[in-house]
C-alpha cells in the first residue's frame, strides 16, 4: 500500500511536468505556427523560401534529435548555456530547470512547424470567390481575413489540430532523453531502481485518461462550430 502511494505520488509529479510541458508548448506553438504560416505564404520570396526550409528541417528530422541538439549544442559550440532559474522558490526552480526550458523550446518550434502547415491548408481551402465577394462589398483585405475567412479556417482545422495535440501529450515523453523528470522518466526510475515494471503501465493509464478527456473536449468543440456547415 505504501509502495502504491509512493508510485502514484511520483508519477503524479511526473504527470504535472508532462502537463506543464504540454500546455506551455501549445501556448507558444499556436501563435508561433501562425507567424511561420504567414512567412511561408509571404509573397516576398527569400522569406517564404527560408521559412519553407525551416519547416522542412523541423518536420524532416526526429523530434528526439531536435531536443538533444537544442539542449546540448549551444554549450558544445560555446555559444551560451541555458539559463538556470534562480528565484529561490525551490519548486519553481526545479520544475523550470534548464532541461525543461530546452525541451519546451524544442517542442514549441517543432509543433509550430506542423501547425503552420495545418493553418496554411485551412487558409488555402477557402474559395477565392469569398475574397472577391468581400472586395466587391468594399471590405479591405484585413477585414475579409478576420471577418469572413478566419472563423471558417478555425472550424476546418480543428480535426487535424486535435490530432496533433493528442500526439503532443505523448511526445512529451521524449523529454526524458535529456533527463527531464516527466512521467515516463519517473516510471522508468521505478524500473531501474526498484525493478518494478508495472508503474510504466500505470503511466500509460495517465496518458490514456488525459487523451480521453481531450477527445471529449474536441468533440464538443466541433459540435459547437457545427452551425457553420458550408
Amino acid at each position, binding site marked *: 500500500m505504501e509502495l502504491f502511494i509512493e508510485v502514484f505520488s511520483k508519477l503524479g509529479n511526473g504527470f504535472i511536468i508532462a502537463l506543464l510541458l504540454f500546455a506551455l508548448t501549445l501556448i507558444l506553438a499556436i501563435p508561433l505556427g501562425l507567424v511561420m504560416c504567414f512567412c511561408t505564404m509571404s509573397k516576398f520570396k527569400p522569406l517564404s523560401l527560408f521559412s519553407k526550409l525551416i519547416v522542412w528541417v523541423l518536420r524532416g528530422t526526429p523530434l528526439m534529435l531536435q531536443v538533444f541538439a537544442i539542449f546540448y549544442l549551444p554549450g*558544445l559550440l560555446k*555559444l551560451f548555456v*541555458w539559463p538556470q532559474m534562480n528565484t529561490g522558490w525551490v519548486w519553481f526552480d526545479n520544475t523550470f530547470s534548464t532541461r525543461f526550458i530546452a525541451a519546451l523550446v524544442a517542442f514549441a518550434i517543432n509543433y509550430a512547424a506542423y501547425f503552420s502547415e495545418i493553418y496554411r491548408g485551412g487558409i488555402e481551402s477557402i474559395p477565392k470567390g469569398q475574397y472577391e465577394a468581400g472586395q466587391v462589398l468594399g471590405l479591405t483585405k484585413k477585414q475579409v481575413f478576420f471577418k469572413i475567412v478566419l472563423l471558417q479556417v478555425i472550424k476546418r482545422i480543428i480535426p487535424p489540430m486535435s490530432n496533433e495535440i493528442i500526439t503532443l501529450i505523448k511526445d512529451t515523453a521524449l523529454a526524458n532523453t535529456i*533527463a527531464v523528470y516527466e512521467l515516463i522518466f519517473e516510471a522508468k526510475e521505478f524500473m531501474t531502481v526498484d525493478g518494478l515494471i508495472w508503474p510504466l503501465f500505470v503511466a500509460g493509464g495517465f496518458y490514456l485518461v488525459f487523451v480521453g478527456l481531450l477527445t471529449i473536449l474536441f468533440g464538443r468543440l466541433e459540435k459547437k462550430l457545427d452551425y457553420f456547415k458550408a
Partner: protein
Amino acid sequence: MKKIISLILTAVILCTLFISCDTAKSDVQSVKDAGKLVVGVTVYPPMDYLDDNGEWTGFDAELAQQFAETLGVNCQIVIIKWDNKVAELNSNQIDLIWNGMTASDELGEKIDFSVSYAKNAQVAVVKKGSTLTADGVKDAKIAVENGSAGATVAEETVKGTNINKVGAMVDALNEVLAGTSDVAIIDITMAQSVVGKGVYADLEILDGASYGDEIFAVGLRKGSDLKAELDAFLKAKYADGTMTALAEKYNVGLNTDALK
C-alpha cells in the same frame, strides 16, 4: 510597407542563428561564481543512490558533497542519461561526472580524469540455479549497460555473439530477472551491493566469470582547472582516513597506490 516588415523578419531570424557570447571562463571560477558544483550521476548503488528520505547518499555522493564544501559552494547532484555523459560535461550542463566511472583509454580521449580513487572489475550475474558456466557466457544472451565498461568487456573480452545494450546497469539486471537475457555483465562494486538482496534476491554472481582490472575516477572537462583541486582533495581525504572509513561503510575497494 509589407516588404519592409518581411525584410526585418528575415533579418531577425538570421540574426538569432548567429547569437554568440563568451563562455571561456576557468572552471573553478565559474563554479564559485555560480555558488554550486553540479555533479552528474545515475542511480548506482553503492556509489550514488537516494536514501529513504530522498536525499543523495553513497560513496561518491558523500565525497562530492565534501568536495563542494571545500570549494565553499553547494553541491547539486543531477541525474543524467549515462549515454550523454560527455555531451553533458562539454556543454557545461554539469561540472563533474562522479558516478563510479571506469577510466578507460577510449573515454580519456574526450574528457579528463581525476586521480583514480577506487578499483573495479566486471562480473557476470545470472539467475540462481542457472546452468550457465563461465565458458558459456560467450554464447548466451548478454545484457549490458550501453557505453559502460561492461559493454566493452562483453564485446572485446568475452566476444559475445548476442549482446543487448540497455540504458543502465539495473536495466541489465532486470533483463536477467525477466528472462529476456541470460546473463548481465556489470561492475563488481554494484553486483556485491545489490545482487542476492531485495528485488534481486533471485540473482547470483557467476563463479569464475570476472573480467579485467579497472579503475574508477571522476570525469572532468578537458583541461579543466578543477582537476588540481580535486586531486589534492582526494589525496587529503585518503591521508586523513575519511576515505578508508567510507570505503568500509559502502564496501568499495580503494585504489590505494594512486591515492598515496
